[in-house]
């Protein structure tokens, strides 16, 4: 206990005197950033999960083409999971001699498990009884339906009780884009619409504790029913999930970058304190303190420092989070604030580990000091391999806190090899500067001399500043690419309306109606069909493990009939002309599907096209951007003279106002029966909404890393402040004017900024070459803009920091400078 008391007393005295200032500031940065990032990330994730769950109406859904066994409901009940059922099918609704294709959705009483079923007049499901429905307000325009009117569905009449509002359009297939009508699931049977072969979709939704849901998911995957689709409320669509995963990866890396950057600040600060620690320890040793006692005393002080600074960091992180909450609430609706426990724990652990990882080498060196140092100041302790090993282990622990295992495997070795290369590179840059020094004169030479006065510290400074600039450059580029990539998936001119099931005799009329409204739309011929054989070998669902492959073989798909693939598909492989089987027409296949089914160029495929069997030779493979909302097909068949049961499909961006859109839709409905109009505007709007939320999260974190990085660069420059003040005092004494000192002082900052920029640009060039070579498989050349921007940005940044931090000392008189030196 006396030892703890002494350590506590010394620690507190040190805090009050400002002895640990830069160390605890760095630890505060590390733990603030981790706490904030973790809390923001968890809240954003929870909010988005909640939104996704609301969209799905449950946490997990089985969607099936057949009724779902009741045993799953029993299992759910046994495991405290709530369930709800829906049954959907497309049918014609009749109102006053007007027909409209609708999506009929029967729902159980507790639907939805997540979110709310919203109607314009706030009616609830149990008010429907057995003779009322909720209807899509589109039916008002399409059928002239009003609330209280009769609507015939199948063999029964219903009353439209209320209009549905805020309908969710995610998870929808094309047929579900038809206006919705909701009624109790018990009523569906009585409509007489269900029978063998009817295309109904059965859904069983689950909600409850995450653990039970995880177990259920595993059981469902294990059950592997081919007619099932298991949907989790992670993200509304798989493509969006991929985009969001990139965002989470970015957040993790940004958090790690901030901690490592703060770690560099600790490394620099501890070098800065090494002399002071060494002197104190040497004195204590000379007065007879045992090594064990000293280790305990200093270790305890570092621990107190870690707890103190991490505690401050956690509080600051949470305070910043709550300050950000109103901003987050604008972007994430509903905002589900995560419990702060995990973020606080991570903040504490990262702050503590960062302090020990990066201050340990200096601490260890100080411990090795000889008592003789009290008498002879030139006896500085040497660094040791064991100290580095301890730091490596701690670094591993720190990184494992912040990264998943997959990232950790490559991140740690890259960091170690990179670290060694970085120090080498920084040393080389400094060496280069020393070499050009003789060719300079006057204030420039003095400024360069300022940088070479403590090469070890300047190398660490360069690594820190260079890394910060590099991290900022990479984050800027990645963020820019990420946002651009997301933006590119939803371009401004993206089609938002689809018209399908146009019969050949309706082609001309529909095209005319669209043209009259100045809508640019190409009507693409297609046929419904199924792949049944490859090279005369039957292809059956049972031959494949992939659920996607099973589904595609079991169901009919839309197959285009075109003489050439559209120009927005990229051809990745083509069969040479001399291998063509001239007696067969060609087919172009989407590359992923070709891989899924093991199809190759030259294969002969047999299709069942609504009862007609036809053979085609694979002539090309294509890459398709499914997120583009353009008309895309797995298979594109070459037209032949033999007729096919073709219909046409088209899509376009509707720039018409609501009235004109409804008029056009009604005209098509009236004149061309069976033609289906799909309005995807709401869905696109919702996707844009979620992407902008993710972009916002990325931008927020980027800003935080930027601020943390600036603080680190600031700390790095402060580590040589004492030597700088000494030089300025000397120059002032020798007669240098204030303007000379300002010139020398700021030049030193600009020089270190330029070197840091050069360092960052070298890293940037290397990183872009590696990424291009190994990841994108592209060749990359020398990019002068990376170099120029890195050097200019870095020099300006350091000039700004120099001006901000030095404007006071630069204007001091020799007497004030002397006082500042004596005070330190």
């Amino acid at each position, binding site marked *: 206990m006396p030892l703890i008391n002494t350590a506590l007393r010394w620690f507190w005295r040190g805090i009050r005197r400002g002895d640990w200032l830069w160390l605890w500031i760095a630890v505060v940065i590390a733990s603030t950033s981790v706490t904030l990032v973790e809390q923001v990330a968890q809240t954003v994730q929870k909010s988005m999960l909640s939104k996704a769950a609301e969209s799905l109406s449950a946490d997990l859904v089985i969607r099936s083409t057949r009724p779902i066994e009741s045993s799953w409901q029993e299992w759910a009940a046994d495991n405290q999971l709530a369930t709800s059922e829906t049954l959907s099918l497309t049918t014609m609704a009749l109102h006053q001699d007007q027909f409209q294709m609708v999506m009929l959705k029967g729902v159980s009483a507790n639907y939805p498990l997540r979110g709310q079923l919203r109607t314009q007049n706030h009616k609830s499901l149990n008010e429907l009884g057995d003779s009322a429905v909720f209807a899509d307000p589109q039916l008002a325009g399409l059928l002239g339906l009003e609330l209280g009117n009769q609507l015939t569905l199948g063999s029964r009449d219903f009353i439209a009780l209320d209009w549905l509002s805020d309908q969710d359009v995610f998870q929808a297939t094309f047929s579900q884009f038809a206006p919705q009508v909701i009624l109790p699931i018990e009523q569906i049977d009585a409509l007489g619409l269900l029978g063998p072969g009817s295309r109904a979709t059965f859904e069983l939704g689950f909600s409850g504790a995450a653990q039970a849901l995880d177990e259920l998911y595993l059981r469902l995957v294990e059950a592997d029913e081919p007619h099932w689709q298991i949907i989790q409320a992670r993200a509304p669509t798989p493509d969006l999930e991929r985009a969001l995963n990139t965002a989470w990866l970015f957040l993790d890396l940004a958090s790690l970058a901030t901690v490592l950057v703060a770690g560099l600040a600790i490394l620099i600060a501890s070098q800065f304190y090494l002399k002071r620690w060494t002197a104190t320890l040497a004195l204590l040793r000379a007065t007879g303190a045992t090594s064990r006692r000293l280790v305990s005393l200093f270790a305890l002080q570092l621990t107190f420092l870690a707890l103190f600074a991490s505690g401050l960091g956690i509080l600051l992180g949470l305070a910043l989070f709550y300050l950000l909450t109103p901003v987050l609430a604008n972007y994430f609706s509903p905002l589900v604030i995560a419990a702060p426990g995990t973020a606080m724990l991570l903040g504490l652990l990262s702050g503590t580990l960062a302090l020990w990882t990066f201050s340990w080498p200096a601490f260890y060196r100080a411990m090795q000091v000889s008592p003789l140092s009290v008498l002879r100041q030139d006896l500085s302790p040497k660094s040791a391999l064991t100290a580095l090993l301890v730091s490596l282990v701690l670094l591993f622990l720190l990184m494992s806190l912040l990264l998943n295992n997959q990232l950790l495997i490559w991140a740690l070795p890259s960091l170690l090899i990179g670290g060694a290369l970085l120090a080498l590179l920084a040393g080389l840059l400094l060496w280069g500067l020393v070499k050009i020094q003789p060719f300079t004169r006057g204030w420039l030479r003095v400024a360069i001399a300022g940088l070479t006065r403590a090469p070890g510290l300047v190398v660490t400074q360069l690594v820190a500043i260079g890394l910060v600039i590099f991290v900022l450059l990479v984050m800027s580029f990645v963020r820019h690419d990420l946002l651009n990539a997301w933006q590119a998936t939803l371009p401004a001119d993206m089609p938002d309306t689809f018209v399908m099931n146009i019969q050949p005799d309706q082609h001309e009329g529909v095209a005319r109606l669209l043209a009259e409204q100045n809508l640019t739309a190409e009507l693409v011929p297609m046929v419904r069909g199924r792949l049944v054989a490859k090279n005369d070998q039957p292809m059956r669902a049972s031959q494949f493990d992939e659920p996607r492959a099973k589904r595609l073989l079991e169901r009919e798909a839309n197959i285009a009939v075109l003489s050439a693939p559209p120009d927005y598909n990229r051809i990745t492989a083509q069969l040479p002309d001399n291998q063509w089987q001239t007696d067969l027409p060609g087919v172009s296949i989407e590359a992923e599907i070709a891989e899924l089914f093991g199809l190759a160029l030259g294969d002969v495929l047999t299709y069942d096209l609504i009862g007609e069997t036809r053979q085609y030779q694979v002539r090309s493979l294509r890459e398709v951007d499914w997120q583009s909302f353009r008309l895309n097909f797995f298979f594109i068949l070459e037209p032949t003279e033999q007729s096919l049961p073709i219909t046409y499909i088209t899509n376009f961006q509707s720039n018409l106002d609501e009235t004109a859109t409804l008029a056009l839709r009604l005209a098509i409905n009236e004149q061309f029966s069976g033609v289906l109009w799909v309005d995807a505007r709401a869905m696109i709007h919702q996707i844009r909404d979620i992407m902008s939320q993710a972009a916002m999260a990325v931008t927020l974190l980027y800003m935080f890393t930027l601020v943390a990085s600036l603080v680190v660069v600031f700390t790095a420059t402060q580590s040589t402040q004492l030597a700088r003040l000494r030089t300025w005092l000397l120059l002032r004494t020798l007669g*240098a004017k204030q303007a000379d000192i300002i010139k020398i002082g700021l030049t030193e900052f600009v020089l270190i900024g330029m070197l840091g920029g050069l360092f960052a640009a070298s890293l940037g060039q290397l990183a872009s070459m590696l990424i291009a070579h190994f990841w994108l498989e592209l060749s990359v050349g020398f990019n002068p803009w990376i170099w120029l921007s890195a050097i200019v940005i870095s020099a300006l940044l350091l000039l700004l920091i120099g001006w901000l931090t030095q404007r006071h000392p630069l204007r001091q008189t020799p007497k004030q400078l002397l006082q500042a030196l004596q005070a330190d």
Partner: protein
Amino acid sequence: MAILKGCELEVEPQQSLAIVGRSGSGKSTLLALMAGLDTATRGDVRLLSHNLSQLNEDQRAQIRAQSVGFVFQNFQLMSGLTALENVMMPLELFNLDQPKQRAEQALESVGLTHRLHHRPQSLSGGEQQRVAIARALVTQPKILFADEPTGNLDETTAHQVQDLLFNLQDHTTLILVTHDVDYAARCQRQVRLEQGLLLEDQLCH
């Protein structure tokens, strides 16, 4: 708190003056005032006909640049520069002619021709102080201030440095702060400070 009280002191051109006294007696403060590094709260300091109390910081710096040289106890060489560059530094900083030739000559005069391109870290204490003396004299100052210039040197080296300083400052006023009695005795004049008071002012030769 008054550090110096009622000091009245006039130094003749090319005179060598030693300021002696115990630690804390105000020696360094007096030196700082005389060199214009600090200003007196009361009274005037006149340096080469300039009233330092009436000049601003930059004007005082200009006088130091043109007319004053300094030698410090702890040498104050810039570790990033070679011996030659350290000596060239004031010449280049103040845009004076032929900095390299003049610096080489100055280093030759202190016997360091063979150490021109060495950095301070690779020079002995005596050599470092000789570089500092060369730097102080290279601008041909009218006054040379030396604050305990041999305080960090062993006896033999200290004597060598003293000889050098006296041999080289023939045409320069030397104001030396020291508590080495023998060294002070080599100056033409000695003043003794005690608790901020000028107690003794005597001519030695």
